[in-house]
């Protein structure tokens, strides 16, 4: 049952010692100056050498949107597909070719609006895909309409009187769909991004990364609270596995559960100490829901980092296992026999 692919792909060459520049193709990057997407591209290019895979084994699949151009900007195999479908295409690719490392660059419109169905099913199915959701809370390529992550009241070209819809919370949606790995990153924090990509790559299964990316043209400053030095410390909660949930410029605030509702407590006035504060546990799915649910609450800091990192067998590995079990059971397949079936006769 050796196929042509087994032949042409069998070379087990050693992996070259790449540098970031090896992943920079010889094309102009055509995002606007200052676009948050640049801040995703560069940590990607810097982390790829650590993947320890020959570059031809890496594929970037993107949809349509400013974010969709990503696949042109990494010197690997790439597929710039159609609006909303990169995850569906990647699903087929990964099942057919589990040997590849498959990355998806998608936008809040591409992934959460038109592509929502593929996103939730991929999360449930747990194919080993790495989703980079460039969330700029607006449709940029089409020049500034509301997206499913635009906030209520947001003025855009398609909501000139203010958006009337509540926003998706991508982390909650991913968790609600069954995603085993859910994280939130921020374009400005490149080191954190690079670490995040490495964690996602290590995770064998569906890895969902919402990345706040600033669109300087159509939604500039959307994430300023979480990125501007001096402000961000009071508005973000950087999640670290096993660490208490502290934040604030002096790390003197913490998040505590009141019943099952997260609240902010001040550690300075002595009422509460570090021991009262929640400790992050990436392996706890209920906690992940609680953390995700903190999003958009004015009084709570915005959690950033890995919400959940559970391992369960990826879909494509289950497929392989089922195939192998069957082959083990029935032996080398007899294709001529299959064609004949059970009820044949000869003339």
């Amino acid at each position, binding site marked *: 049952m050796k196929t042509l*692919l087994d032949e042409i792909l069998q070379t087990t060459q050693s992996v070259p010692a790449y540098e970031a520049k090896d992943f920079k193709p010889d094309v102009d990057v055509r995002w606007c100056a200052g676009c948050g997407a640049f801040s995703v591209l560069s940590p990607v290019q810097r982390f790829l050498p650590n993947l320890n895979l020959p570059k031809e084994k890496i594929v970037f699949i993107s949809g349509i949107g400013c974010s969709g151009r990503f696949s042109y900007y990494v010197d690997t195999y790439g*597929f710039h597909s159609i609006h909303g479908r990169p995850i569906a295409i990647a699903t087929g690719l990964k099942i057919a070719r589990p040997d590849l490392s498959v990355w998806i660059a998608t936008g809040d419109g591409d992934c959460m609006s038109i592509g929502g169905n593929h996103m939730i099913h991929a999360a449930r199915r747990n194919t080993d895909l790495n989703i980079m959701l460039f969330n700029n809370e607006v449709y940029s390529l089409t020049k500034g309409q509301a997206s499913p992550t635009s906030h209520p009241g947001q003025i855009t070209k398609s909501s000139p009187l203010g958006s009337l819809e509540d926003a998706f919370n991508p982390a909650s949606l991913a968790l609600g769909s069954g995603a085993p790995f859910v994280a939130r990153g921020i374009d400005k924090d490149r080191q954190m991004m690079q670490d995040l990509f490495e964690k996602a790559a290590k995770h064998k299964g569906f890895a969902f990364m919402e990345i706040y990316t600033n669109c300087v043209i159509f939604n500039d400053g959307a994430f300023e609270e979480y990125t501007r030095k001096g402000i961000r410390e009071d508005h973000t909660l950087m999640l670290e596995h096993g660490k208490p949930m502290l934040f604030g410029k002096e790390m003197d605030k913490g998040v505590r559960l009141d019943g099952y509702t997260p609240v902010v407590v001040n550690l300075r006035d002595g009422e509460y100490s570090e021991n009262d504060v929640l400790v992050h546990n990436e392996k706890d799915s209920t906690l992940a829901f609680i953390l995700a649910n903190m999003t958009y609450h004015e009084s709570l800091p915005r959690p950033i980092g890995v919400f959940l990192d559970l391992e369960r067998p990826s879909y494509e590995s289950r497929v392989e296992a089922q195939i192998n079990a069957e082959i083990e059971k029935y032996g080398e397949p007899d294709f001529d026999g299959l064609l004949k079936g059970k009820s044949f006769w000869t003339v």
Partner: protein
Amino acid sequence: MPKFIRTVEDATIRFAGDSGDGMQLVGTQFSETAASTGIDVNTFPDYPSEIRAPEGTLYGVSAFQVHVGSKKVNTHGDVVDVLVAMNASSLKVNIPRLADKCIIIADMSGFDTRNLKLAGYEDNPLKSQDLSNFKVVAVDIEQEVKKLLKGSNIAPKVIKKTRNFFALGLTLWLFDRSQEHALRWLSRRFANEADILEANTRALQAGYDYAQNSSLLDFQYKIEHIGLEKGTYRNISGNEAVALALVAASQKSRLPLFLGSYPITPATDILQYISALKRYGIKHLQAEDEIAGICSAIGAAYGGNLAFTTTSGPGLSLKIEAIGLAVMTELPLVIINVQRAGPSTGLPTKPEQSDLLQAMYGRHGEAPLPVIAARSAADCFDSAYEGARLALKYMTPVIVLTDGYIAQGSEPWKVPLIAELPDITVKFHDDPATFQPYKRDPETLARMWAIPGMQGMEHRIGGLEKQDIKGNVSHDPLNHQKMTELRKAKIDGIASDIPDAKILGPDQGKLLVLGWGSTYGAIRNAADIMQNEGHQISHVHLRHLHPFPENLGTLMDRFEEVLVPEMNLGQLQIILQSRYLRKVEGLHKVQGNPFTASEIVEKISSMLH
């Protein structure tokens, strides 16, 4: 008692009963027996659209029709010569289908007061004059099997369930067929259920004996053997044939097979069939919707698989955008569309041929692709295989059209050895130095293919227009014109890679009947009749609908008139007229069921006079 022998060329038998009566099962047994004992068969199952309609109702009738003959029968039969009616409703709904003098084998136990009422009969038709045109063989099968198995330890429920095998025995005798095939099947199927095995086996035998001894049945059909080519045969439905064709093409091309699909009647069988083939290393995805079905197939094709997607009308409509992507990225992809009656949900369980224009033209932008149609259940194999060959050779999506009639109907198929099938050789480009993603084979115009994992040929494809040869995104006006024309030329060029259309009958004459798809059987039979009557007519049946065979135009020119019978309002007609600028006559049936030969004969006759 002594019986006449009635030698016939063909006959049609229809097993009809309540959904729970096991008619599909014994119909299949009958047809397998017939085929394996040397006569031709063609079958069609006819389920109710309800999953399980209330017992005994008119809309709960389930039927299975078998056409047998000493030469190729081609259709499941225009009219019924023998009806097995397990209850009153199954008689009533089938009356319009019966031939004069039709033999009605009726199970009287299905004509009790309750059943008669459900069927809307005031009086028992078996006892009235209503059926005087027919020959009624009324047997109380329930009584018979009860009698037979009285004293055994077998549960009454099981005994009642053997009525269908009694009926099968009866019909096997009537057609002078042995019980062997059915007996073998029973012992395989119920190897671990001794009582069921025994009950059915004895019921089968009893039915056979009953017929032999009955004075009501005073003759036996004799149907000569059909002189088949030597070889191995099996019965096959169109849906099975499609699945096997793709498996065979995957073996032949040495590419792994991938199916991305979403269930939809009447295409679901293919997905189900493939999903059971994991031991053959075959992968599939039951996707969240049709869009993901085709997109996952595109992903697998991008990864170097032979990828296909299966669907029916509404699903094809949903796949349209992604088909355009496959056209633009020039990836091989086989799209199987099992047509059903539309528009919208339409008559979802009924066949129609009304997706042809969509297959041809249903994409935004100029997005040409090959369109192929299968003419019969067995021909689904060759057509789908040809689809895979073209997809891989020309790096293009291909639409293969079948329909609910041939997809679910079955006929004997001469099983090929994979080694003997037409060549499908795939060569990935393996020289990084000369690789260009949109460089083309000068002969086929197919673009070069390299897949992820191949070193030194990293490149990017996508839905935006691409620069000729290099494959970069290009907005250059002349490049777009060139690429648009290249994509068209590539598909048009396939015309020289396909066989000429074959004419069945004289080379020239008064009338050419031109068909495509599942109308083959009815047209074939109609043409036979007319040709036998000495009329100057011929028949051409197209497999390749886009591009057309190169000789089609000249071929049409040799006939005064061209008739195109279609199960739509004239879709091939539109394409032919536009292409060949000549008037083509249409015969349009959109009734959710196939043409009969006589409908076509009638039309031909009216055109000849």
